[in-house]
């Protein structure tokens, strides 16, 4: 069975995700030792530096979504199933810094689809408690493990359907975020496909460095940051970095 990592990397007018990929893809390769495929568009591809043995899939990404009034190119995630060349895929956000081999465990399970439903704010501020922002518990689409199976395909197809009718689902589930968000689309799809009675999840918390924490340095061991005049650091721990300024550190 082919195993690998799929990363979506598409620049916006404001953010240079290619510069983030330059930092995160070598970490994924080093710590997980799996082949990597980058899904990108032509403009971003032209800016990406050589990343060694990496495959590329060029797409015409869909545009038109926003976050905090800034362009947000997150509308193609449901295509991961068709775009992945692997039988077992770890779909990873480009701003996920992989500092351990923990995620390899997922490839040894019988699960068709796994995603985090809990995060751990490494600054200790518990910044991501969204439980009251919708009637459905959110999942974190930052990391998705899936196999090429009928169940996984159903979930991705359901996300495509939800995306098309997002305002309806937003109203139905009383979601406070009116712009399309994969975290909610996958949460809804998982709930519906599993018959509204729960679904398997990654039983760990996704370590996350929130947007107000500014990354001050990073290397192949870990990351340091400042937040509210305090310094923090983390080593050998996978972490999702929200601060897009990390591109320039």
């Amino acid at each position, binding site marked *: 069975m082919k195993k690998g990592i799929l990363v979506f990397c598409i620049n916006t007018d404001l953010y240079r995700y290619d510069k983030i990929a330059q930092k995160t893809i070598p970490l994924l390769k080093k710590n997980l030792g799996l082949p990597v495929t980058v899904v990108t568009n032509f403009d971003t591809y032209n800016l990406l530096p050589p990343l060694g043995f990496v495959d590329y899939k060029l797409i015409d990404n869909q545009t038109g979504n926003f976050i905090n009034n800034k362009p947000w190119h997150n509308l193609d995630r449901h295509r991961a199933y068709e775009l992945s060349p692997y039988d077992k895929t770890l779909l990873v956000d480009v701003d996920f810094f992989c500092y*351990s081999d*923990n995620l390899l*465990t*997922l490839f*040894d*399970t*019988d*699960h068709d689809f796994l995603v985090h439903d809990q995060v*751990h704010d*490494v*600054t*200790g501020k518990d910044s991501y408690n969204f439980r009251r922002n919708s009637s459905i518990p959110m999942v974190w689409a930052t990391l998705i493990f899936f196999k090429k199976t009928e169940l996984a395909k159903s979930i991705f197809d359901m996300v495509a359907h939800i995306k098309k009718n997002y305002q309806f689902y937003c109203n139905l589930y009383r979601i406070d975020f009116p712009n399309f968000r994969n975290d909610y689309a996958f949460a809804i799809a998982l709930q519906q496909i599993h018959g509204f009675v729960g679904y*398997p*999840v990654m*039983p*760990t*918390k996704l*370590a996350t460095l929130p947007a107000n924490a500014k990354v001050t340095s990073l290397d192949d061991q870990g990351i340091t940051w400042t937040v509210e005049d*305090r310094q*923090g650091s*983390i080593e*050998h*721990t*996978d972490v999702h970095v929200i601060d897009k300024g990390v591109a320039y550190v």
Partner: protein
Amino acid sequence: MEISKLKQKSDRSYTIALEKQNALEKAKSRMLFAHNGHLFNADAETISLVKTLSEELGTFVILDVNDNPVLIEDPKALLDVLKSKNQEVLNSYHQLYKTITETR
């Protein structure tokens, strides 16, 4: 004690608590492992359960982390992995904990 010293002490306590929490979450993540296609935590509860059941039963069923039943046909192999993983992770946590509390 001067208020500035008290603030320093408070800051130090906060930093230690935060780093300890991050180290603990890291340890919990590392305790997860796959066995026969199912996910288990190498925590004290799982070790105790597997050890207790294996004392009287050759094979038995336990629940994985997502509450799926799993038939354990080789309890000794599972127990060995559980103990080894648990101690590997807790030793790392112990080292990290010492660093956090001693160097601050």
